[in-house]
């Protein structure tokens, strides 16, 4: 389980590199070519901090094949009140789930 960064969507802001609790994301290149790179994909804890902080939804989360990953991905679009989660598999939408940031869990 790890994350993938879409180079085309990345604008090089560096928020993900700053927030990663494992210091696993590195900024590479200069100017327009400055991009975030996942330097240590097998050291990711899967906390989703980078996925949530990215303002362009350029980062997606996936499960490694060794733990049952089948190509599915999870993305998050965050605003003050809610997180919109999008789960896809091979280009097809699996499910969209909106979790409120204001409501408590039922469980």
């Amino acid at each position, binding site marked *: *389980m790890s994350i993938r960064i879409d180079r085309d969507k990345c604008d090089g802001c560096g928020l993900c590199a700053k927030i990663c609790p494992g210091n696993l994301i590195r900024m590479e290149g200069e100017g327009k070519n400055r991009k975030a790179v996942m330097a240590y994909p*097998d050291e990711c804890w899967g906390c989703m901090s980078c996925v949530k902080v990215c303002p362009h939804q350029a980062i997606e989360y996936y499960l490694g094949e060794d733990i049952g990953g089948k190509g599915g991905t999870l993305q998050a679009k965050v605003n003050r009140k809610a997180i919109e989660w999008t789960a896809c598999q091979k280009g097809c939408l699996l499910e969209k789930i909106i979790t409120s940031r*204001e409501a408590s869990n039922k469980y």
Partner: protein
Amino acid sequence: MEQKTIQADLLIIGGGTAGCYAAITAAKADPQLKIVVVEKADIRRSGCLASGVNALNAYITPGHTPDFYVDYAKKDADDIVREDLLLTLSQRLNHVTADLETMGVPILKDEAGHYVNRGPRNLKINGENIKPLLARATRRQRNVKIINHVNIVDYLVADHRIYGAVGFSPVTETAYQFNAKAVIIATGGASGLYRPNNPGFSKHKMWYPPFNTGAGYAMGMRVGAEMTTFEMRFIALRCKDTIAPVGTIAQGVGAKQVNALGEVYETKYGLKTSQRLYGTVQENLAGRGPCYLKTTGIDHQKEEDLYHAYLNMAPGQTLKWLENGGPSQQNVAIEGTEPYIVGGHTASGYWVSTNRETTIHGLFAAGDVAGGAPQKYVTGALAEGEIAAQAAVKQLHETTRTAPVTIQTQAEQLFAQAQQYLHNDPTAPSIRTVETAMQLAMDQYAGGISQHYGYTEAQLTTAQAKIAELQAQIEQAFAPDMHQLMSLYEVRERLLICQCVIAHLAARKETRWHCFAENLDYPDLDDQQYHRYVNSVYHNGKVEIRFRNLVKRADVYEHQN
């Protein structure tokens, strides 16, 4: 390498749950103090709460008292707890919870405005954003300076008194010296000591943050701080593969633990934390595995609620369900994790006084590094941060000391050591190779998953010999950049903790907690000999064991030396 020196009255190492709250408490107690929080990553998403938390599991619900919580934790750990620490922590649980709510953490309430309990000690919350909220409250304190992305590797100590710490950036070529009059250590427990459930690509998909490497324990050991109960390892019962929590399924939809034959087995072995795990191990050994949480047949609404709940704390589990079929269609397979050393769940950590001072003067401990007080969870870590901060501030007001000149020499030696690692022979065994060998040795000879958590004295002797070899190897390892330098220090820390764990496991010649310390040479409880603490001090490269009598609930414990 560039060198920076930073002065503080109070230095807080680790900006997790306990560290942030300690900073807030100290800042409010004395707005004149210069407080510095130094953090390996970024306090907005570091430590155990990075991905969120689903409930507050330490709270005194109506009709109960702090003593009720102490009784629970004491029973769960079969008496090997510090009741003085548990009581002082329990007395603060509700007030820190109220404070969390004012920071913006949503807590479920009924129509009358009372919190809704999840269990006798638990509240339902939305904890997805808890860490950013705690970080914001910390940042708002004017006299708190937060320094992110600095990995502290050693204390500066003379005559058993602390004067600061030394660390390195994992990104830029910068070394830091922190000079401080008092220090609170609030780093995490230790993951990555044992071979994990999924040793391949997903090796870091573990219960506890893989970035919590036990730095605080190792630094303390190196300066001779007394440690306690490292033999009480923590092993979590988790959803297979994703290592996501099981409690939310068990408590949320009332799912029971069943074996492959569909029989409910949890009642057979008992409901203590270690017994739930032990039962699962025993069912597997008896050929009745794999074990599951029985979720098939839950209705659509409950399934959707589970998807939501896991997105707020362990999103991988929701993705796994979406990819492979949800819990209404198939039961959730469960397994035990590899063992961890973590003072928030068991009693391992620094041996502290009632006001959380360690045996190093001026060094206080809170949260997962502080021993003696298991079942802390989030609110217990906050409470300890508060206790430690109040005691540290009081000490700062009462005493002044200036650092001896030897402190500067110490700092320079530590910088030189880092330079050595950056210039070691690149053909030496790699940091990763040493780490993997350590995890394998611990797994096979110190009661890891492959051994169903059991060990013998003969095995522990082998484990110790292998760890000693690896300790020599890590000193020769090469760090090509600052990130790798951090990794090298992390493996070095873990090896030292392994040495301590092995010594403690060997010292408790009984089996008090199944799985957590399953001594196959001594399979029974021995209250006559071991109804006491196993403590240790690291001295001249050896872990020296000291037994200590249990501290009573009403005691105010102070260090004698």
